[in-house]
């Protein structure tokens, strides 16, 4: 009112200014970690499109400001670019803390704003460390669902495998600090062995565009990178403590980073998580406890000319599998599907009994790089991984404590990568890789081997190039060749060997005939070519489009070739096929992105045609009567398939305090030969949230999120079956997807400054606020029990 009056008065006096614009804003840019002023930081006053820089004391000033809001974008080498809004009310002053952010040294000159993408024209999304910290008590697979188009296939709530655009397991490649994870990822119940707390940034690349990592990423690539280093004398870290009501879980995680100006760095991180039996909305999920210990450490030296790094990480997980999911036959599966309550519901306990799995994974790597004048960078890496998986089953005669599955996979990889970037408009990368893998299935289990002993040899070479065709047009292309040889030694039951026609087709593979068994020596070679071609057009500062074609080829995994036995929790006999050959994917994708002052929007579409697509289907052999009961046979086959999908992400700032976000993913996938929908394809899912932030209330932030999963109505109904039972009614086994569900989640946080260089972040959240009972199509325990009920979580994070 006063203001209006002033305007009126000013107008009366005939002064051209419509308001008083004589205010000065003084800012001080300070290093968050050591409190030192940062000189030479660039300040872009976005709302006025003016630039200034900070002086030696870290200060800068902007004159002739009007009352109201201004937007500042502050950037400084070695720091994450920061965008802040300042309310100008008269002359004002504000401290601006900058967060450390070490660009890879060789990239400092090229990019300096925010997260760095690994690809140019692929559909890549980045999950920043701030978001990752919210998932401290959960798993990698949970965090990845932040990316539209990424969902997960679960076994309970602790075994979470990422699905990228409908594909998972061997079709998704996961890199942990530059090392391709080799952890028996072919198994659907084998979650990636990565401690989410060791990740500083995660990048998800849809499709196989990132050829340097492998040519077989038909679904996509997940790149997990540790917390970045900075060339500066500094010490920082954080500690997280959290607890949750559901499963009475708790979690502690801590990391410490020491960096030197000379380029030396050291980092250590550890975490421990534990929970007891989770609860669905109405009952306890008996034997769903889990315990996880993770540790990682790295040190090295980062200089422009050369550097090295040594890295070690270890994770050990012990995970209970829902007791009611241990079933004896197809009858129990049919009964479980129709039962209102699981068979075993007991009181809460932290105890992890059989059935359970215990997996440990060691990863060690060492890297060395050197830059050459007028050429670029060469880096060399050796890594070793040891993955040891035990699965314990409900057995008798005191054998439960003896593992029923005991598999050890050791991998050695040597790789050499070269980057020729002396001409920034024509960059080239090329590399070579040699890998040896030894898989050992311990016979002391007293249970026939699920996967045989094998040796695997891989050799790969690639070349990729990145061209700046025009100021606004970037193109990239790549080609890769992979050779792989798998040399197994496997026992087949003579009956099976003959039944599958192997005795006629592969008689030369038999090296020893035992009573009722043959020992065979299957050795197969696969030659695969993959490639990518893409273009990026920056229409203007706010809009860009991407187009990409990728060819990927994947050799069959051991499970597709050699599976031969009963899969308990799926109540089926799974049979691999030695005749299976590589599958080949052609993926075409386009993206459009808009980024404005209020609206951010990304639209991604893709079509993926996969020839010789390998998947498991009910066998025409039907149901066989085993002595323990009737079981259906499922076998791996090859067909042609196509996937089509649209992923959308939109963020809109209604007012500076209120934001809304929308994410959704639509996917359709078919077996082209039989014209039936593929199984286990995520249903249409949409996430919508509204967030309120207020920096003045200790950086208060709160959000309400809705998760709406539709019913998957495209299901191969032929996969349901009817089991004839002697002298009883037939049993219908209906595997059809469960109903749609809608969940609401709540989150809130504040950040309190503690001492000079430390702060405390307190986060409180409620998952599934209304304690809704639901079943998720992509949770393999959906046949036996509901998914998780309400969960209150409290997390304290101390930054120092």
């Amino acid at each position, binding site marked *: 009112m006063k203001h209006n009056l002033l305007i009126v008065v000013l107008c009366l006096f005939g002064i051209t200014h419509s308001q008083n614009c004589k205010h000065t804003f003084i800012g001080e840019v300070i290093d968050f970690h050591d409190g030192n002023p940062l000189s030479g930081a660039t300040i872009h006053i976005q709302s006025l499109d003016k630039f200034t820089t900070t002086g030696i004391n870290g200060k800068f000033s902007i004159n002739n400001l009007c009352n109201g809001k201004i937007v500042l974008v502050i950037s400084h080498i070695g720091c994450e670019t920061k965008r802040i809004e300042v309310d100008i009310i008269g002359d004002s002053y504000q401290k601006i803390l900058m967060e450390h952010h070490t660009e890879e040294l060789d990239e400092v000159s090229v990019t300096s704003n925010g997260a760095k993408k690994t690809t140019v024209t692929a559909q890549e999304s980045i999950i920043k460390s701030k978001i990752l910290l919210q998932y401290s008590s959960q798993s990698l697979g949970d965090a990845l669902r932040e990316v539209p188009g990424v969902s997960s296939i679960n076994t309970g709530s602790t075994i979470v495998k990422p699905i990228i655009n409908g594909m998972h397991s061997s079709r998704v490649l996961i890199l942990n600090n530059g090392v391709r994870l080799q952890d028996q990822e072919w198994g659907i119940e084998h979650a990636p062995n990565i401690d989410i707390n060791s990740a500083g940034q995660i990048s998800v690349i849809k499709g196989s565009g990132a050829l340097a990592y492998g040519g077989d990423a038909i679904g996509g690539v997940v790149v997990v990178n540790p917390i970045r280093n900075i060339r500066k004398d500094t010490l920082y870290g954080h500690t997280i403590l959290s607890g949750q009501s559901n499963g009475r879980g708790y979690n502690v995680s801590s990391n410490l980073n020491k960096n030197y100006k000379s380029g030396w760095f050291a980092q250590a991180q550890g975490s421990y998580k534990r929970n007891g039996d989770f609860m669905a909305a109405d009952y306890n999920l008996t034997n769903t406890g889990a315990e996880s210990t993770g540790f990682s450490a790295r040190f090295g030296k980062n200089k422009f000319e050369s550097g090295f790094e040594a890295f070690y990480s270890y994770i050990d997980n012990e995970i209970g599998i829902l007791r009611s999911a241990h079933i004896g036959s197809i009858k129990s599966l049919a009964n479980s599907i129709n039962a209102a309550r699981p*068979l075993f519901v007991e009181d809460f306990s932290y105890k992890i009994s059989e059935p359970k799995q215990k997996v440990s994974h060691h990863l060690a790597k060492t890297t060395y790089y050197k830059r050459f004048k007028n050429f670029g960078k060469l880096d060399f890496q050796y890594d070793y991984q040891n993955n040891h998986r035990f699965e314990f089953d*409900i057995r008798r005669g005191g054998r439960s404590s003896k593992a029923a599955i005991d598999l050890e996979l050791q991998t050695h990889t040597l790789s050499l990568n070269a980057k020729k970037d002396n001409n920034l408009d024509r960059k080239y990368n090329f590399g070579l890789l040699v890998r040896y893998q030894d898989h050992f299935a311990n016979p002391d289990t007293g249970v026939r081997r699920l996967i045989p002993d094998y040796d695997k040899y891989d050799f790969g070479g690639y070349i990729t190039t990145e061209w700046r065709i025009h100021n606004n047009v970037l193109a990239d292309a790549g080609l890769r060749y992979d050779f792989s040889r798998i040399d197994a030694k496997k026992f087949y039951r003579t009956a099976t060997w003959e039944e599958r026609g192997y005795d006629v087709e592969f008689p030369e593979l038999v090296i020893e005939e035992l009573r009722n068994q043959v020992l065979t020596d299957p050795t197969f070679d696969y030659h695969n070519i993959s490639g990518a071609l893409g273009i990026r057009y920056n229409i203007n500062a706010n809009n860009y489009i991407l187009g990409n074609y990728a060819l990927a080829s994947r050799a069959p995994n051991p499970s597709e070739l050699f599976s031969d036995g009963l899969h308990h929790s799926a109540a089926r006999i799974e049979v691999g096929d030695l005749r299976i050959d590589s599958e080949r994917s052609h993926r075409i994708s386009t993206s459009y992105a808009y980024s404005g002052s209020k609206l951010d929007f990304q639209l991604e579409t893709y079509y993926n045609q996969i020839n010789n697509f390998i998947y498991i289907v009910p066998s025409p052999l039907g149901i066989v009567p085993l002595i323990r009961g009737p079981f259906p046979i499922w076998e791996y086959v090859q067909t042609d398939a196509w996937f089509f999908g649209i992923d959308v992400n939109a963020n809109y700032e209604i007012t500076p305090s209120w934001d809304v976000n929308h994410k959704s993913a639509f996917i359709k996938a078919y077996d082209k030969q039989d014209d039936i929908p593929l199984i286990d394809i995520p249903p249409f899912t949409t996430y919508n949230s509204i967030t309120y932030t207020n920096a003045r209330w200790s950086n208060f932030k709160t959000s309400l999120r809705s998760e709406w999963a539709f019913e998957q109505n495209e299901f191969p109904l032929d996969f349901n079956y009817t089991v004839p039972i002697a002298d009883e009614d037939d049993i219908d086994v209906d595997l059809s997807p469960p109903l749609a569900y809608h969940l609401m989640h709540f989150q809130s946080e504040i950040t309190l400054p503690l001492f000079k260089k430390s702060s405390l972040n307190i986060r409180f959240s409620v998952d599934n606020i209304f304690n809704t009972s639901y079943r998720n199509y992509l949770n393999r325990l959906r046949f036996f029990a509901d998914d998780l009920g309400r969960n209150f979580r409290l997390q304290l994070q101390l930054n120092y």
Partner: protein
Amino acid sequence: MKINLLNSKTMKTIKFYAMAIMAIAMLASCDNDDDTPAPVEEEEAITKLVLTFTNQADNSTVTLTWNDDNEDEVVDVTEQIVAGTFAPGGVYDAEIGLFNEDEDFLDEDILADQAGIDAHFFVYATTLNFTMMRASDDEDRTDGNKLGVKTVWTAGTAGTGTISIELHHESPSVDDSTGFGTAAGDDTDIDITFNAEIQ
């Protein structure tokens, strides 16, 4: 790990070659190893089942046998043998035997201790005219139910039909009051049906 030694600052290009040669040597040496895996003897497999009925009056027997000749765990029709027929009105003492190859599975894995007995329960069913009870010298479970290894069957009128046997493992609740028995869940170690005749 010896590789770490190469992390010294002064690492020279030559060491790349050293590593490469090492790698090749490693691969070559792996090529030569042909350690043959040992076959796994299935410890908990039931490869043979025999249910023997002995007529209390004249000691004549009826036996229901399944023998997994080809060891594929599948109950093939040719592997099931029924020897003898039941006499109407006959009272039979029945006893079941389970074997893993030449091991006595029943003795070693079920009857060896009370925990083994408590974890198991036999359930029988028939479409023939039989009444049945569990024998007084049958094994007792801690919950008061009898295990069902030893049973007494009384044949009624003539007819053809089936006898089926289920062995439940860790069933959350069992009940032997009908003689034939009932058990919750379907976690079965044995689920087999034989054709039989009362004549």
